C-alpha cells in the first residue's frame, strides 16, 4: 500500500480518533489518504491553532494529540505549539510534510529545515529517509510522546516517500535502546522519604503537573489523607488536589496564596512531586525555602537537583511512587499531633491573608468576580482553558478546580492565543463536558480564526473574553515596576467581538452588569453552538498577591 495509507493504519492502531491539521503541497498524499481512512480530521485555520488544539485534546483526555502541517510555513507555524508542548510535557505527535528528497537542501519551494528548527524543542524527532521506516517511526513517536515524561515528537516525511509503495506490517514492539524511562522508584529511597515525612514538623507537599500526567491524583489524595500534610499545587497541577479542601493551601508561586508561599518559606521538609522549581515558584532562589530539606520525585532524572539540590531524590512515575510512599508512610504509624503547631501557624496566615479583592460599588464587573461567577454558572465543573496573562492568574486563583484535567493552560511557555484552540481540542476530546475558555482581549485575537473551525465543525465551546482593554499583565508590570509609563499596552479600538462572533457564524454576547452576570453566563452556556462572550471588566485591576520579580516569597505584596 502507499506509505500514507500505512500511516493511517498506524494512527488507527494507536487509537487515534481525531487529528487537527491543514493541508498543503507536501502533505497532499496524506490528505488523499484521509478521504477513505475513517479518521476524523478537524480542519484548522492556522497550524498553530491545530497544534494547540492537539495540546488541549491531550491535556483534557490524557491521550496523545495529533497535529499535521505541510512543509515550510506549515511546519514553522507549528513551532510555538511544539515548544509549548515541550515546556508543559504534553504528549503530541506532529506529522509534517517535507519537500521531495531530490529537492532537500536546495531551498526548494516551501522547504524549511523542520528537523533542525524544532530540534531543541522536541522530545525526539524522526527524519524519514526510507519509506520502509515510516510505520516504525510513527509507532515509536507515539510511544515516546506518551511514556516517561510526555512531550512532543515530530515525524518529518518527504512527499515522494509518502507516496512510495510499502508493505504494512503492524508494529507491536518498539525498539529504542537509548530510551528506558525509570517509572517504579527506588524502594529504599521511598522508605527514606516516608521516614523523612514522619520526622518532619513543618512539611509541605509541593505538587506539579507530573502528578496530573501520571494520573496520580488519587494517590496524592491518599498521601494527604495518611496524615495532615498541607498541599500546594503549581499552576500546572491545579485540580490534582481538590479545591477547596481543609489541607489545601492554594496555588503557590508568583501569584499564589500567602499561606502556600509562607508555608514553603518556613517548611522543614518539602516533598516535591512532579514539579521543577520554576523561577515563578521559587522567586529569589538564594532565599527560597531556606530551612527546608527536599524530597524530589520526578520521572525525568534531569529535573532532580537541576535547580534545587535534592536530599532524597526519587526517579519514577508520580502515581507509582506515591502509591508506594503511602504504604510506607502508613506502616510507620507517625503521630499526627506533631503537626498541630504547624497547622496553627498556617491557619493564622489563612485568616490574616485570604485571597480577596474590593468589589465594585456599582454594577461594574471586577475580573475576579467574573471568574467566581463563571464558577457558579458552570457548577464549578467545567473544563476551563485560558490564554496567558492576568485573566489566567485570576482564573487559577478563583476557579476552584475539583479534579485534574479540568484546567488547561500554557504554563511554561506562556503562549498567548493558546486558550481558544485548546478549548476546541478539549471539546473534541470530551464532547460531553462543558468546555469554556477564559480569554484575554489581547490574547484571544492571536488565534481568533479558529472560531471558524468551531462553527464549521459544530464544536460547542464558550469563550468568555475578560475584556479590560489592555494587555493587562504587561500594563500591571509597567504600573508597578516601570513608574506607570504605559508603553503599547492599550488595545485601543478593538474589534466588536459581538459582531465578530456573528461574522464567524457563532453567537456573540456582551455582558457589562455584575448584578445579572451569573444568569447571563448561564444563558450563554445554554446557547447552542460556539459562543463568544465579551465581558467588560474593570480596566486597571491588578493581580495580587504577588512575589515581585527577584524577590523572596516572604516579601509578597498586595
Amino acid at each position, binding site marked *: 500500500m502507499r506509505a500514507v495509507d500505512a500511516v493511517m493504519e498506524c494512527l488507527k492502531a494507536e487509537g487515534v480518533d481525531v487529528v487537527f491539521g491543514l493541508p498543503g503541497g507536501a502533505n497532499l498524499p496524506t490528505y488523499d489518504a484521509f478521504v477513505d481512512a475513517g479518521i476524523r480530521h478537524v480542519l484548522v485555520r492556522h497550524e498553530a491553532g491545530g497544534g494547540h488544539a492537539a495540546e488541549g485534546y491531550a491535556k483534557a483526555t490524557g491521550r496523545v494529540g495529533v497535529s499535521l502541517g505541510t512543509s515550510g510555513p506549515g511546519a514553522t507555524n507549528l513551532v510555538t505549539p511544539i515548544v509549548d508542548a515541550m515546556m508543559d510535557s504534553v504528549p503530541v505527535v506532529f506529522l509534517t510534510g517535507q519537500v521531495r528528497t531530490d529537492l532537500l537542501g536546495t531551498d526548494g519551494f516551501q522547504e524549511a529545515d523542520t*528537523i533542525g528548527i524544532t530540534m*531543541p524543542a522536541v522530545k*525526539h524527532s524522526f527524519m524519514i529517509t526510507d519509506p520502509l521506516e515510516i510505520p516504525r517511526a510513527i509507532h515509536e513517536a507515539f510511544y515516546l510522546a506518551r511514556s516517561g515524561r510526555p512531550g512532543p515528537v515530530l515525524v518529518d516525511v518527504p512527499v515522494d516517500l509518502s507516496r512510495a509503495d510499502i508493505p504494512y506490517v503492524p508494529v507491536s514492539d518498539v525498539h529504542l535502546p*537509548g530510551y528506558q524511562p525509570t517509572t517504579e522508584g527506588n524502594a529504599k529511597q521511598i522508605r527514606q522519604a516516608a*521516614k523523612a515525612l*514522619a520526622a518532619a514538623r513543618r512539611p509541605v507537599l509541593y505538587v506539579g503537573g507530573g502528578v496530573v500526567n501520571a494520573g496520580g491524583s488519587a494517590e496524592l489524595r491518599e498521601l494527604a489523607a495518611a496524615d495532615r500534610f498541607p498541599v500546594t499545587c503549581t499552576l500546572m497541577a491545579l485540580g490534582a488536589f481538590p479545591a477547596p479542601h481543609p489541607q489545601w493551601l492554594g496555588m503557590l508561586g508568583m501569584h499564589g496564596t500567602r499561606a502556600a508561599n509562607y508555608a514553603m518559606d518556613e517548611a*522543614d521538609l518539602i516533598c516535591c512531586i512532579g514539579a521543577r522549581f520554576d523561577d515563578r515558584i521559587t522567586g529569589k532562589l538564594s532565599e527560597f525555602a531556606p530551612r527546608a530539606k527536599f524530597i524530589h520525585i520526578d520521572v525525568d532524572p*534531569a529535573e532532580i537537583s*537541576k535547580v534545587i*539540590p535534592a536530599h532524597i531524590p526519587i526517579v519514577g512515575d508520580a502515581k507509582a511512587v506515591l502509591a508506594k510512599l503511602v504504604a510506607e508512610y502508613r506502616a510507620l504509624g507517625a503521630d499526627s499531633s506533631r503537626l498541630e503547631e504547624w497547622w496553627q501557624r498556617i491557619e493564622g496566615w489563612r485568616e490574616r491573608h485570604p485571597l480577596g479583592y474590593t468589589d465594585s460599588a456599582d454594577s461594574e464587573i471586577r475580573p475576579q468576580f467574573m471568574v467566581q461567577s463563571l464558577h457558579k454558572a458552570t457548577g464549578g465543573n467545567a473544563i476551563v482553558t485560558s490564554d496567558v496573562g492576568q485573566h489566567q492568574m485570576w482564573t487559577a486563583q478563583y476557579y476552584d478546580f475539583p479534579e485534574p484535567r479540568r484546567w488547561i493552560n500554557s504554563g511554561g511557555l506562556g503562549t498567548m492565543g493558546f486558550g481558544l484552540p485548546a478549548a476546541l481540542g478539549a471539546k473534541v476530546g470530551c464532547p460531553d463536558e462543558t468546555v469554556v475558555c477564559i480569554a484575554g482581549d489581547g490574547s484571544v485575537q492571536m488565534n481568533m480564526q479558529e472560531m471558524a473551525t468551531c462553527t464549521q465543525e459544530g464544536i460547542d465551546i464558550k469563550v468568555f473574553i475578560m475584556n479590560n482593554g489592555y494587555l493587562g499583565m504587561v500594563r500591571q508590570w509597567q504600573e508597578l515596576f516601570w513608574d506607570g509609563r504605559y508603553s503599547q499596552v492599550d488595545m485601543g479600538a478593538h474589534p466588536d467581538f459581538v459582531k465578530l462572533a456573528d461574522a464567524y457564524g457563532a453567537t456573540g454576547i456582551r455582558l457589562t452588569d455584575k448584578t445579572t452576570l451569573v444568569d447571563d453566563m448561564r444563558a450563554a452556556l445554554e446557547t447552542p453552538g460556539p459562543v463568544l462572550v465579551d465581558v467588560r471588566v474593570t480596566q486597571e485591576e491588578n493581580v495580587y498577591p504577588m512575589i515581585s520579580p527577584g524577590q523572596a516569597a516572604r516579601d509578597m505584596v498586595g
Partner: protein
Amino acid sequence: MGEPGTKELLSLEELEASGGLRTGRKHVLSILVENKPGVLTRITGLFARRGFNIDTLTVGPTDDDQISRVTLTLDGALHPIDQVTKQLHKLVNVLKIRDLEPAETVARELALFKLAVDGASRAEVMQICEIFRGKVVDVSRRSIILEVTGTTDKIEAFERMVRPFGLVEMMRTGEIAISRGRGET
C-alpha cells in the same frame, strides 16, 4: 515510632543534598550513540542550549557500524557534571555515557605543528620532537611539520617548547579515551 516522644527514626538535619556539584576537574565523557543523521547536532545543540561549554569533541566509528562513539571533554569547575550527563541521557539516540575516571583511563590526542624553521633551528626542533617521541612528517626549506601524540598535558608542553621557533599553525584532534583493564569503556 508512633507514640509522642519516641525517638525519631530519621533526623532531617542529617540529610545531605546530592547533585548539582561542581567537581573542579576536567571530565572525559565517552558516549555511545546510534549512528543516525543529526545525532551530533542533537548533542552540540543540547550543550549550546543548556550553556555547557565543550572543550574538545571527537566522533568516530566503533567496531559496530550501527554505533558511533563521541568523546568529549569539559570542565567540571564550570558545570555540574551530573546535570550534563542526565540531559545527554534524555537524547533518545544516546545509548551509554561513561564519565571516565582519569586514573583508570588512557587518553590520547594527536596534534600537528607547522613551524617556520630553516636550517639554523631545524636540528634543535627535531631534537625536541624526538624527546617527545614525535615524528617529522613534512620538511621544506622554510618549514617543518611535526606530529605528536599523547595526553593533553604532553601536547601542551610540546607546544610551549616549539612555539618560540615560529609556530605557523597547530591542529589538534581533541582527546579520545579508553578505560584501562579488561572491561569495555
